[in-house]
């Protein structure tokens, strides 16, 4: 490295990642405008002037090791805007460009980032934006409910759709084929054999060994983005709470945060603490349930009933203390609608203590159970490099070396006042995803105690004030599955004009296609459970 280069390198290192990115764009001749202050705080914001540069932008992001977190489009009349959210070392950066809505066309980001693949297919199905260089020309969100020439998220498309008749089955989707002697194909779903959400899996196997898995999702596409349009802030919070029923707190939190940032509304600190408490409670019940279900899928019924029993106790606590077993609709724009008093605080503390005691006992039993180890260790291995390439989130990422956690790396209230430890492993198998959940459970219990202990006095909500038309906001929170991103734009009269929730499942589903390879068919259920992607959160 010569002296000038070295100097440039040093300068780059001392720069904020977003500035460094901006500088590199201009070095490569990409015209971009930094908007300051950013309309999407805490993210930085860059407008890319020429849509033709969109691919170059992705290549710079790839070179600088940004994570491609989310992408969404908006109908602006004569133009469609496309926004992408990147993240590097806890710094978020939103890039936006515009393309003519008469012939919407952009270079694809998918050749650079796997995580852009399905979101771009979604934008293609919903807006009709063509992405040149995209490796997969097939539809994704669209089955047979609307035709290939109409696009539901364009303003001209009526909310009620066009065909009131029966929707035909989606029978001619061009699945990938695998040929060879002894290769057979196993189609599974959309209706599965348990109490579980619907989706289709297409396996190719030789004997018992899986050669490939292709996911075909979006069976529970309910038009969430479209029916969000025209809602009030309060009504959007309700809808957000139903993006994925098991993450009702997480999504409502992210959506409210986005709306409050758009409205520049300061939420009382006490409300933030209660929100944090609710999110951690949600983490506890879901992790307990996943640990139960992982054990159940390898026929270790003992642990299934034990963890299930503990979970039920927490659900009943939720009902008694907050009026809802799953904590739906407790987070509202401006704050929360439930308070924590001394009595509830004592009850939670008691439950935390009891759960710790029970977990310690159960963990010993787990450790001594070699048959459980036989099934979980090495099964469903996700390599650290693959997790990085995919941008895997939550416990899926953290079991394969990806330590990112919004609570720690880009802290928001109340986590900016708490101590968050993030357990990370490199083992990458089902066992590791089990143990990372277990460790996260302990962290959540500690956080619950901290939240109760440090809970400030004050109001639990501030009156909602609608922002001016066009105001936009970004909510980023760490749900129990990982980073949840929520984008909101307001229109006239304080009504929502655009809502895009990015559940971590959207990013993590492709990890399942990777990690099952080479496993035997009967291990698929436990591999799937160890990832536990949300179908509803993915399909929207």
């Amino acid at each position, binding site marked *: 490295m010569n002296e000038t280069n070295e100097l440039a390198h040093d300068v780059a290192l001392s720069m904020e990642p977003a500035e460094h990115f901006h500088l590199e764009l201009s070095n490569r001749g990409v015209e971009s405008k930094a908007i300051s202050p950013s309309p999407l705080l805490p993210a930085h914001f860059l407008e890319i002037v020429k849509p033709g540069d969109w691919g170059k932008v992705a290549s710079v992001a790839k070179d600088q090791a940004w994570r491609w977190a989310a992408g969404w489009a908006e109908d602006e009349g004569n133009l469609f805007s496309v926004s992408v959210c990147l993240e590097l070392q806890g710094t978020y950066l939103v890039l936006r460009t515009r393309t003519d809505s008469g012939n919407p066309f952009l270079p694809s980001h998918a050749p650079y980032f796997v995580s852009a693949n399905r979101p771009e297919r979604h934008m293609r199905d919903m807006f009709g934006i063509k992405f040149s260089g995209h490796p997969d020309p097939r539809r994704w969100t669209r089955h*047979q*409910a*609307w035709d290939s020439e109409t696009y*539901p998220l364009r303003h001209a498309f*009526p*909310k*009620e*759709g*066009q065909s009131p008749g*029966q*929707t*035909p*089955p*989606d029978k001619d989707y061009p699945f990938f084929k695998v040929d060879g002697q002894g290769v057979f194909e196993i189609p599974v779903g*959309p*209706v599965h*054999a*348990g*109490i*579980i*959400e*619907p989706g289709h899996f297409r396996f190719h196997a030789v004997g018992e060994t899986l050669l490939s898995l292709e996911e075909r999702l*979006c*069976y*529970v*596409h*309910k*038009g*969430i983005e*479209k*029916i969000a349009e025209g809602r009030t802030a309060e009504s959007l919070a*309700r809808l957000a709470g*139903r*993006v*994925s*029923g*098991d993450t009702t707190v997480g999504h409502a939190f992210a959506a409210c945060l986005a709306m409050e940032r758009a409205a520049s509304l300061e939420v009382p600190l006490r409300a933030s603490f209660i929100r944090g408490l609710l999110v951690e409670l949600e983490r506890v019940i879901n992790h307990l349930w996943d640990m139960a279900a992982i054990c159940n899928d390898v026929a270790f019924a*003992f642990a299934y*009933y*034990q963890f299930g*029993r503990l979970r*039920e*106790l927490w659900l*009943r*606590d939720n*009902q008694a203390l907050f009026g809802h*077993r*799953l904590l739906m609709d407790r987070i509202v724009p401006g704050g929360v609608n439930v308070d924590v008093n001394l009595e509830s605080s004592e*009850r939670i503390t*008691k*439950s935390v203590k*009891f759960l710790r005691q029970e977990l310690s*006992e*159960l963990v010993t*039993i787990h450790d*001594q159970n070699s048959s459980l180890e036989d099934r979980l260790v090495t099964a469903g291995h996700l390599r650290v490099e693959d997790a990085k390439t995919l941008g895997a989130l939550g416990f899926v990422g953290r079991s394969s070396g990806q330590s990112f956690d919004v609570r720690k790396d880009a802290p928001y209230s109340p986590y900016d006042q708490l101590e968050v430890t993030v357990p990370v492993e490199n083992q990458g198998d089902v066992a590791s995803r089990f143990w990372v959940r277990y460790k996260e459970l302990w962290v959540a219990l500690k956080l619950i105690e901290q939240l109760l202990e440090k809970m400030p006095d004050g109001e639990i909500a501030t009156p909602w004030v609608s922002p001016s038309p066009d105001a936009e906001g970004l909510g980023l929170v760490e749900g129990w599955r990982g980073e949840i991103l929520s984008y909101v734009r307001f229109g006239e009269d304080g009504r929502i004009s655009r809502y895009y929730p990015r559940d971590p499942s959207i990013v993590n589903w492709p990890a399942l296609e990777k990690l099952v390879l080479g496993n035997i068919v009967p291990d698929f259920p436990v591999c799937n459970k160890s990832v536990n992607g*949300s*179908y*509803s959160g993915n*399909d929207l």
Partner: protein
Amino acid sequence: MFGIYRKILTTGVLTEKFARKKRLSQQVGLEGREPELDEIGKKLKATIDKRFAGSLHIRQVDAGSCNGCELEIHALNNVYYDIERFGVHFVASPRHADVLLVTGPVSRNMEAALRRTYEATANPKWVIAVGDCGACGGEFGVSYASCGAVANVIPVDAVVPGCPPTPLDLMRGILDLFSR
């Protein structure tokens, strides 16, 4: 290995019955006990004994739900509710089922699959629409992507509203249908 046995013994039987109340009171979390469970359970068992020779088979179908209802349907099988003891069994195939427990709203992308599941279920059969969405479309209603209520797609015999309905609501719903 002994650890498992010890834990099983010390955990005891948590399944909610009046007779076990005394022993249960040593456990944490009992403030939230379901006092009605025993009564509803007894009636449910009597009804199923009489009408289905002791066993009612349910196939659950998620036709577009947010997964909230599924969590509560699952809870019916945990040790506290243990709905199998009343004769209610969840089965893997619609061909084995007496009842389809359908959560909604029915997404258009699931419409054909739901119709086919219904057709695959042998007569006599009953359909219970679960949750506010299954009952009336709920938060999602009818749109380009959603058919709304389950009744808009297949014939429905009973409805269990709630967002989501609690395990007790679900038991009550099944009981109501077969006590008519």
